[in-house]
């Protein structure tokens, strides 16, 4: 009876106002989406505008120059860009396998009673402020690296072919490797939490069919779960990468904040975010301040490039798989 009434109402009286509400809803959502674009464009433009003096003065050399010499007013962004990319790469190399392992364990392997507590523990890890990671990195992890890990690395790998230069240098515990590992630990909860949700969303019939066909657990993971969730997992990884690229406090503590370009991962370096945090308050010439804002703009550009590459990669994987299957 009620249902009939409702249908009647929609068909006759409320049709017009319903259409108007729909249009309004459409406008509101579109405005929300445009707001993000506006914000993004505004942020990019204001950074480019703030950094224009640096770009005008140094041109393309700003990106390729290694020097960061404040008294001589020579500014080059290569070291911070390099440090940012290398530490983030180390972070992902560590965080991706661990996070996916955690997520798979939680969705498919762990006994049901233990899943809740472990999931909550991961979310708690994500809630720890980054300065705590930084202090832990400086007071606990860096001395551990200096005493136990880095001497071993430079003794055993320091003279090896090809990878040798990556692991040479004095073991001081502060540097790109330590910063990368701390960053890795910081992004694990982000990737793991999303990956767990995604793996949970794999339809049970798919997995059950695989079991029915006699698949082992490994085959289910590698042939069903991972391919099904591929794009969402890559999304999760890039969420983590985004955090790693922009992380400031923790990196400032353990990266060494030195504008030196070195192949060795044991040597101190600088990152874009750390350089800005360290130097902005005392940047008292226009060119210095402008160079720091230009650095921020470059971080924006670097992130954009990395995300674009990720999207293209995803597109290519999807196309190839579409062709073969």
């Amino acid at each position, binding site marked *: 009876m009620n249902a009939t009434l409702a249908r009647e109402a929609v068909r006759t009286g409320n049709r017009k106002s319903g259409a108007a509400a729909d249009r309004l809803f459409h406008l509101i959502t579109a405005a929300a989406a445009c707001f993000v674009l506006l914000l993004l464009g505004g942020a990019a433009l204001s950074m480019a505008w703030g950094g224009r003096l640096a770009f005008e003065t140094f041109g393309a050399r700003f990106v390729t120059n290694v*020097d*960061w*010499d*404040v*008294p*001589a007013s020579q500014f080059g962004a290569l070291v911070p860009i390099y440090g940012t990319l290398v530490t983030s790469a180390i972070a992902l190399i560590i965080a991706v396998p661990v996070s996916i392992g955690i997520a798979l364990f939680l969705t498919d392997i762990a006994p049901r009673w233990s899943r809740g507590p472990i999931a909550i523990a991961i979310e708690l890890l994500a809630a720890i402020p980054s300065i705590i990671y930084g202090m832990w990195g*400086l*007071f606990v992890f*860096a*001395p551990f690296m*200096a005493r136990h890990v880095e001497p071993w690395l430079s003794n055993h790998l320091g003279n090896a072919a090809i990878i040798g230069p990556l692991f040479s240098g*004095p073991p*001081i*515990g*502060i*540097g790109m490797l330590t910063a990368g590992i701390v960053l890795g630990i910081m992004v694990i909860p982000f990737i793991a939490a999303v990956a767990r949700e995604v793996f949970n969303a794999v339809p049970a019939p798919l997995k059950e069919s695989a079991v029915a066909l006699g698949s082992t657990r490994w085959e289910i993971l590698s042939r069903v779960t991972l391919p099904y969730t591929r794009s969402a997992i890559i999304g999760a990884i890039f969420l983590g990468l985004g955090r790693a690229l922009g992380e400031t406090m923790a990196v*400032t*503590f353990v990266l*060494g*904040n*030195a*504008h*030196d370009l070195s192949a060795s991962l044991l040597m*101190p370096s600088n990152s874009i975010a*750390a350089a800005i*945090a*360290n*130097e902005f*308050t*005392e*940047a*008292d010439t226009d060119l210095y301040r402008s160079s720091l804002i230009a650095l921020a703009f470059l971080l924006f550009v670097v992130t954009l490039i990395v995300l674009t590459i990720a999207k293209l990669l995803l597109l290519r994987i999807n196309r190839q798989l579409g062709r073969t299957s």
Partner: protein
Amino acid sequence: MNRMVIALPLATLLAACSGNAGNGSESAAGVTGAGSTFVYPVLSAWAADYKKQGGADINYQSIGSGGGIAQVKAATVDFGATDQPLDSADLAQSKLAQFPIVIGGIVPVINVGGIAPGKLRLTGPLLADIYAGRVKKWNDPAITTINPGVALPATDIAVVHRSDGSGTTFNFTHYLSQVSPGWKSGPGEGKTVKWPVGVGGKGNEGVAGYVKQIANSIGYVEYAYVVQNRMSFASLQNSAGNFVSPSAQSFSSAAESADWSHARDFNLVMTNAPGANAYPLTATTFILMPKQPVNKANSDAAIAFFRYALAKGQAEAGKLDYVPLPAPLAQQVAAYIGANIK
């Protein structure tokens, strides 16, 4: 030390929020100042005492010397504080008066197993060579010859410097430039320079933290951090040829031997002072105030506060490991304030 960690970002925030507070208000209820982080502990102690005795509220934001100079030039605060003095031309152009308020020292701190505080001796040129990366090992002959009887390891020297711009770095590099031609023509002097080697810690607490965590390291921090953290330090050879440990006495003897009476607007960096017992890395914090203030009431209240600090606050400074201005200098400053600030 911890309060500095918290105070810095907080102060920056406050500075952003209350930038206009000192401008329009009629009464002298809120005197605002900004600048040097070096002077923050003693200034806030003075401000608390001053208020207890019925004085005005002094709100000081330790945002760094550069920020302090910028804010006082823009007249968003009633006074600025800087560890690097401005020259007379700059002061005249921006119509500012400048005077010293308190003295402190910068100390080379070390973390080399088994070496007690003050046992390691360094000369200025040697310190410059270490920071330039020319002397790389602790058992380098340049170090061992002036340190007979000190067991120095055959390890690399891990150099720690400041990563942020700072008046401490200005005084340190100014000293290295005075004593080492190679340093002067190389990295030179400034609130931050292009460091040839080493890792950078943010703030005094950052450098102190790195030196404590990295074995066989050397850094430089303000004296208060050495005392509070019980760090090991090196004694330095002064221009008279004596090796001097940092202490209130050696800082004051540097302040007394410096030629203040001929320094226009007190534009004098005290490093490498000539006295026989003078500590060579002695530094000063300067107050900057507009000669014709926009807000007369606030400016008068600030002057009253600084007169109080010069007369009664200098003993308090000693308790916080700063050094009082020598009496003749304090009188000179009081006369300068009266003559220059309307």
